[in-house]
């Protein structure tokens, strides 16, 4: 096999490039956070040239190598989305948070909870640390919070089991709270804070560069969130607000005017309002009519729908023995409004 000098040179160059490329094969992650901290990036240039028309062996530069530094960037999000309903007083209501390492190096984070972060909005209450423990770390055996049993999650002890996360990895954190005696339907907030445990990182200005503190031996660079993150979750104390108003919406007397006189027909409206959070079970609204009036048969309407007087499939009836209009609403979830109208004649 004969190879021309030019071809030989080309092959030569390729061999060297191949060798250089091999050296560059370095472990790296392909996550959204970018090249892993500690990765070495090498640049090698190869020059081929000729002297007096004769091709010379190519010359390769010493590799210009830089080490990828670590960005410290945690993110924290509250997972429940809507306030978690708790009894008042109550124990061990659970808020779920997700701590994510959005940096490019393995990093440990310390967690802190702030009960009722300031400024405390008017009407808010301050939750208490849970009696089973204030913070738990999901152990991965079974999704969701388990305080005990075979899949029990791990109670968080600062400085002992701080979550150490690889790039892009997440850790579910459960914030457990007891609820003091509070007004029904009031909100209680807990803020969870995560802070990098790299010395000097948490709270430092974005872009702060800390020598030898990055994973892989490079710099640790404080990310845009100052190497810390926080998220606030909310509880809502259970308890239904129930209000009922009864008004006379019209009076029609025998003369066609609105004079309250014997024979005048009055229209009553009962407005029942369920507020807050939770469900009213087997809600029954009874309206005993005064002795001075006589019920107008077939006049019950519930939310605009006419009902019969008999104790039958529809949910309203008139009980003549006690002269009472009774409406059974079953289980009603708050918030809800129920409008009942009926008519009665003045005796």
């Amino acid at each position: 096999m004969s190879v021309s000098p030019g071809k030989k040179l080309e092959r030569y160059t390729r061999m060297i490039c191949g060798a250089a490329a091999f050296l560059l094969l370095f472990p790296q992650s392909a996550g959204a956070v970018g090249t892993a901290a500690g990765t070495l990036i090498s640049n090698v240039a190869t020059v081929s040239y000729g002297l007096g028309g004769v091709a010379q062996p190519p010359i390769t530069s010493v590799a210009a190598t830089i080490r990828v530094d670590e960005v410290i960037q945690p993110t924290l999000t509250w997972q429940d989305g809507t306030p978690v309903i708790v009894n008042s007083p109550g124990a061990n209501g659970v808020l779920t948070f997700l701590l994510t390492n959005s940096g490019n190096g393995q990093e440990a984070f310390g967690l802190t909870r702030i009960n009722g972060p300031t400024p405390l909005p008017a009407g808010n209450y301050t939750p208490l640390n849970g009696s089973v423990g204030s913070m738990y770390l999901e152990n991965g055996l079974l999704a969701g919070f388990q305080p005990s049993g075979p899949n029990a999650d791990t109670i968080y002890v600062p400085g002992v089991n701080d979550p150490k996360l690889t790039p892009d990895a997440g850790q579910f954190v459960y914030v457990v709270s007891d609820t003091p005696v509070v007004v029904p339907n009031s909100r209680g907030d807990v803020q969870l804070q995560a802070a990098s445990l790299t010395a000097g990182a948490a709270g430092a200005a974005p872009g702060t560069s800390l020598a030898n503190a990055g994973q892989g031996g490079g710099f640790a660079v404080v990310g845009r969130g100052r190497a810390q993150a926080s998220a606030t979750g909310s509880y809502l104390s259970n308890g239904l607000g129930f209000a009922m108003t009864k008004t006379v919406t019209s009076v029609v007397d025998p003369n066609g005017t609105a004079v309250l006189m014997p024979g005048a027909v009055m229209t009553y409206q009962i407005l029942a309002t369920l507020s807050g959070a939770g469900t009213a079970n087997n809600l029954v609204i009874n309206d005993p009519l005064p002795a001075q009036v006589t019920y107008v048969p077939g006049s019950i309407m519930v939310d605009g729908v006419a009902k019969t007087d008999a104790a039958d499939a529809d949910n309203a009836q008139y009980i003549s023995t006690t002269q009472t209009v009774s409406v059974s609403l079953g289980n009603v979830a708050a918030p809800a409004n129920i409008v009942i109208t009926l008519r009665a004649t003045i005796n």
Partner: protein
Amino acid sequence: MQISRSLFTATLLALLSGFSLAAYAADGAIKVTSVAEVEVATVGPDGKKTLRRATPEKAVPGTEVFYTNTFENVGRQAASDIVINNPIPNDTAYKAGSAFGKDAVVVFSADGGKTFDVADKVQVKGTDGRQRAALPSEYTNIRWIYKGQLQPGKSSAVGFHAVIK
């Protein structure tokens, strides 16, 4: 058999000596160095912002790295047919339009150095197996073809920018 073995040994020796030549840049008539830097903004006492090149201290993903390859003729003869080959460094993407080089034609490859062409004509095989125009971020290699000769004692520089993925 004997002859072919000695021939093989000779070839191997030649290859090894070739490698040693390549490894020690000072042994050739051309000396080449590659430098990686980042641009750092500093605000002076007069409030003016100045940019300077520095050794990276915050080489995090997204950082633009400035690569400069300087080549110098350290021999006694003029060097000709100078070609500088530079694979795009691992974990970086070539920044469009950043390649520079005085008196040099710049060509790129998106197939690991098999084929080269000028910037807007570089082709790459798409996922459907068809050739298509390559994005600058898909370039795998840069090559500078130096026009003319480099006289003894003279040097020149070529370079490019790449962004850490």
